[in-house]
């Protein structure tokens, strides 16, 4: 008997179908439009300018929109694309083919990753364009702010966009993990938002517990720190000057931290989904 091996080709097919479904549903388009409005709005709905710090404000707005709408997109799309297969019983036909359940889960994650990559890429390029033109205009207006030429490093902008994407990838894996055992889409979405909040705030909880000094506090903080990734480590938008680049070592640490959670979340999702009754 010829064994059926885990196949990246099949993962790619499932992922491609997932992206196609999202694209044809136009949910994705809605989020892009909303985020675009915010990025562009940050610039065009203001009628005053205040030199170089304005660029910071624009960047904050842009990455804020990317984080906010990106998270909402990731949570809803992941849950929706997963449960549409279960509820419409298309998973039945799919898994009756020589397809590993792990391929199904990984395919869904790769599909969501593709979707968020498109989203983050689009918005990053757009934001960079807005920053570039605005920077040009401000250089004329406030030449002494720009004595050394342009202040925004566009490599940093791209890096910050990539970090946003990595963060959404983790979020997607965690939502998929919840979906793999959840009975309803609503449960997965609500839990997804809860996870998002915890991941953003876990450093606060951590600090509070560490200060408490009790054994229970220490254990609890360690547990939370281990279970949930700290999304703060992906925030680069504070500074976009090349001088503030945190260094490749730090980047590698953050990326492996993020990918570790993606791998862990996916592995657990595969485990939970392994015996699920379809």
């Amino acid at each position, binding site marked *: 008997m*010829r064994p059926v091996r885990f196949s990246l080709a099949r993962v790619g*097919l499932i992922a491609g179908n997932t992206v*196609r*479904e999202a694209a*044809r549903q136009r949910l994705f388009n809605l989020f892009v439009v909303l985020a675009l409005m915010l990025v562009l709005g940050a610039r065009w709905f203001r009628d005053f300018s205040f030199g170089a710090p304005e660029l910071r404000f624009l960047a904050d707005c842009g990455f804020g929109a990317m984080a906010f709408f990106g998270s909402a997109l990731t949570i809803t799309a992941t849950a929706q694309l997963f449960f549409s297969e279960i509820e*419409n019983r298309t998973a039945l*036909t799919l*898994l009756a083919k*020589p*397809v590993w359940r792990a391929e199904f889960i990984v395919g869904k994650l790769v599909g969501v990753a593709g979707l968020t990559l498109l989203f983050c890429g689009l918005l990053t390029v757009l934001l960079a364009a807005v920053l570039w033109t605005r920077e040009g205009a401000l250089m004329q207006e406030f030449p002494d702010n720009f004595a050394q030429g342009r202040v925004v490093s566009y490599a940093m902008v791209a890096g910050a966009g990539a970090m946003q994407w990595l963060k959404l990838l983790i979020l997607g894996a965690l939502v998929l993990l919840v979906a793999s055992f959840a009975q309803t889409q609503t449960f997965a979405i609500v839990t997804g938002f809860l996870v998002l909040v915890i991941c953003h705030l876990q450093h606060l909880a951590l600090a509070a517990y560490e200060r408490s000094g009790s054994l229970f506090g220490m254990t609890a903080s360690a547990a939370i720190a281990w279970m949930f990734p700290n999304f703060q480590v992906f925030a680069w938008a504070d500074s976009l000057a090349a001088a503030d680049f945190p260094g490749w070592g730090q980047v590698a640490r953050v990326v492996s931290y993020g990918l570790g959670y993606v791998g862990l979340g996916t592995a657990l999702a595969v485990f939970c989904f392994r015996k699920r009754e379809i």
Partner: protein
Amino acid sequence: MATPGATEAPAKVPAVEIRGLVKDFAIGLRGVKLRAVDHLDLTVEAGQVFGLLGPNGSGKSTTVKLLLGLLEPTAGQCRVFGVSSLRVEARREVGYLPEAPYFYRHLSGRELVHFYARLCGESGTGLGKRIADVIALVGLAEAADRRVGTYSKGMLQRIGLAQALVHDPRLLILDEPTAGVDPVGSAEMAALIGRLKAQGKTILITSHLLGQIEDICDRVAILDRGRLMVEGAVADLVNRAGRQSLVVEEMPPGELAALRAWMEARGRKLLAVEPAGRRLEQVFLEQVGRGKGEGETRP
């Protein structure tokens, strides 16, 4: 059609082998169990057309899902061509049409069949033609480029069949393939099953439309509440052998009595005299332009 099929399979491995199969579903919160399949034993030899019959909720679909590894048995085991259903390999030679199928609404019929074909590892230059062929085979050529979301129930069944056939599997599992299909479609389906059988395929079909099953199956099993009630060759079960029915024009009572006497004189017995009404199905098929013949597809 009731002869045991000529098998091409080299070894005598049964296409489907179910041994002591039990499936309990947990229903309710306090661990109440519902036994959907109860110690089922079944064997489907390669090349047979096998009907799995039973009333609603008798466990037909559950059995099929267990066979496909979509559910895990509580006890017992299933094998497909000798491979345990729990293994992915068991599904390589199987085409499955789920009951009341529903497919990706966002794809066209052609894209859908293409997607499933690729998942089964089909590729290459001949694939486009093969896809067009199966779509034509199920009579959907005109609607192939429409979105599946716009398909009617019967069309969904047809595209489902195309999807099940596209990788040319040795075993076809059809869960109520004619539910929601019009009589013309059902007759076409029956003809198609006949052709697939002639190609040496094994077909497991579940239904509660007994009329159709009777015509196309070699063997049937009847389930009730998850238990196997009876299993055997259709001809044996309905005791068809040794009987004939003659359809004649209406006879006056006198002639009928004479006929009876004529037969009795030869040691034969006239078992029944009844009006030979056409079945409504036959009227329908005639009106929509097709006799109950085999083969050709709708114009």
